[in-house]
């Protein structure tokens, strides 16, 4: 019967297309020669995907760039019972301390990195190479607000009322800013209460509490806020999008933080991780990332500070930068994160 035949035909086609669809993505064999690299979401992820990944692929390895914040990387590594979700991590000293203590990262063998000797001394750490030093301060819109002198200015000066965005302790940038603010108000890395008191008092004058650093960038673009805690890289990115943006060094000192790649214990292919590290510190990559739109400060001694970097920070200013006490911060960070939510909740 014709109808039955066409019906069986249809069923056959439907069934086989479902199967083909399923096959398309499910062939994800655990092949050696691959590295899953955690990279900060947003411009870091874009930059690493376009600049670093091709070099790793050329070296013959498969690379997956996975966007995830530094603190969340620690969370995921700690929560994983068996194999680590990432082979390579991208974090700052605060996270490094936690990961080291939990035995989740490997000491590396510098002889496996052909670009190791090109690094400046401070970038050579036992657990991996630092790929940049982030200098943090205050990003502001010069067309709508005056240049802030420092953190205290943001709370005291009425010109900033309703224009500033803040985020919680899930972000390294924010944590450093809050630590400085705590110091200004009589606290420090061991006492964050002055900050919570300050927040509670000023909640209605604050522009917005955002969910993440990148969310702040979006709000800035949409004109919802004009000031937020940022790195020079963030400001370079806003400029590249054609938006008016400037960087202000807080008078108490600009918190600076190195960003380092680590190899996770139990990485599926260490050679792939080394290839990735090598790519990230290579002269070509570092030179490209030092240019717009990223403007990352290079750790490769062969790469000079570019114009776009010099607009925001000179090597001298870098020497005067403030380096936070990550060990003390690390002890309290989880409770600060929870407390922040409580204070800002409506």
């Amino acid at each position, binding site marked *: 019967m014709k109808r039955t035949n066409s019906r069986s035909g249809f069923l056959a086609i439907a069934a086989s297309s479902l199967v083909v669809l399923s096959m398309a993505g499910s062939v994800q064999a655990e092949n050696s020669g691959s590295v899953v690299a955690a990279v900060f979401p947003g411009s870091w992820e874009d930059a690493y995907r376009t600049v670093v990944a091709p070099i790793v692929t050329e070296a013959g390895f498969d690379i997956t760039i996975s966007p995830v914040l530094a*603190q*969340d990387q620690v*969370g*995921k590594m*700690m*929560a994983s019972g068996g194999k680590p979700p990432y082979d390579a991590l991208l974090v700052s000293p605060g996270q490094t301390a936690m990961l080291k203590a939990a035995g989740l990262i490997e000491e590396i063998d510098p002889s496996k990195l052909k670009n190791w000797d090109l690094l400046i001394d401070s970038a050579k750490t036992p657990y991996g190479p630092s790929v940049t030093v982030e200098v943090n301060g205050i990003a502001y819109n010069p067309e709508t607000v005056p240049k802030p002198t420092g953190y205290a200015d943001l709370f005291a000066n009425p010109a900033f009322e309703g224009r500033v965005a803040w*985020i*919680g302790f*899930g972000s390294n940038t924010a944590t450093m800013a809050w630590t400085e603010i705590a110091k200004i108000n009589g606290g420090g890395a061991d006492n964050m209460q002055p900050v919570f008191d300050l927040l509670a008092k000023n909640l209605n004058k604050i522009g*917005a*509490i*955002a*969910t993440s650093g990148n969310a702040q960038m979006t709000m800035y673009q*949409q*004109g*919802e806020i004009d000031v937020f805690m940022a790195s020079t890289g963030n400001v370079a990115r806003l400029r590249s999008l054609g938006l008016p943006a400037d960087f202000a060094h807080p008078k108490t000192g600009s918190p600076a933080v190195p960003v380092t790649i680590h190899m996770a214990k139990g990485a599926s292919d260490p050679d792939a991780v080394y290839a990735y590290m090598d790519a990230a510190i290579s002269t070509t990559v570092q030179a490209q990332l030092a240019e717009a739109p990223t403007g990352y400060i290079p750790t490769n001694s062969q790469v000079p500070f570019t114009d776009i970097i010099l607009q925001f920070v000179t090597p001298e200013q870098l020497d005067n930068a403030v380096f936070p006490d990550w060990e003390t911060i690390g002890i309290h960070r*989880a409770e600060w*994160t*929870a407390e922040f*939510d*409580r204070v*800002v*909740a*409506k």
Partner: protein
Amino acid sequence: MQKTTGTIFAAPMLMMMLLFFLAPLGVLAVFSVLGPDGEVSLANYRTFLADDFAVGVLFDTILLGAKVVATVTLLGLPIALLYWHSGPGLRGLILIATLLPMLTSNVVRTFAWIVILGRNGPISQSLVELGLSSRPISLLFTETGLVMALTQIELPLLVLPLIAVLSQADRRLIDASEVLGAGRWRSFLTVLLPMLTPAIFAGWVLVFASATTSYVTQSVIGGARLIYMPRFVYREVGILFQWPMAAAISFLLLISTGIVMLGLTMLARHRRLAAYA
């Protein structure tokens, strides 16, 4: 004979549910009563319930669900009635208008609301133009905005069951009541409403469940200052990586939403039996 074939065919899915759905939930329950030294205790629950903030989050979540259910009902009943009074053409259109949002991705529906509720969005612009506000206001990151967004997203969950009932209903019932002199409202309240009640309760269960657990919408539209249970649960796992505490919190979410829904379902069954009494 039928019974054995029946059992054989149903067995795989039954086993799958027992092993892969109910068992993990059981493990979760066990973990939630694990104290710091591994002994059985309700310490986690006590910590949660003693924490005003945490209880507040739970309460706010349930309240959010209730608010969304209320607004969905307020808008959903008229749609159902519109459907009832329409001819086949309009009925088809209403059906499509209901199905389309339901089949559209949750994320898609949420992002549209970001623009709608924002400072430069159509709502803000209209309010300014109508003179109801002196400057642009943003409904983003407010609970009002969140309820508005969730209402649109969950509306089809109530309307669809209502339409399903109405499409099978007998027109002559209403016609009869009208012939006997009842006004429109009377016909609605005495004939249509009892018929729709089971579907309404079914819709309420779905809407409540969905609204309270919609992590994406709550995060995107609610923002960092409006915290509900899903975000709270996710945080505990991601930030504090403590399984027993996370287990306890999520179990509380399960129990509290479960109680509400069980109550609604029982009401539905009770009413349904009463309608046929």
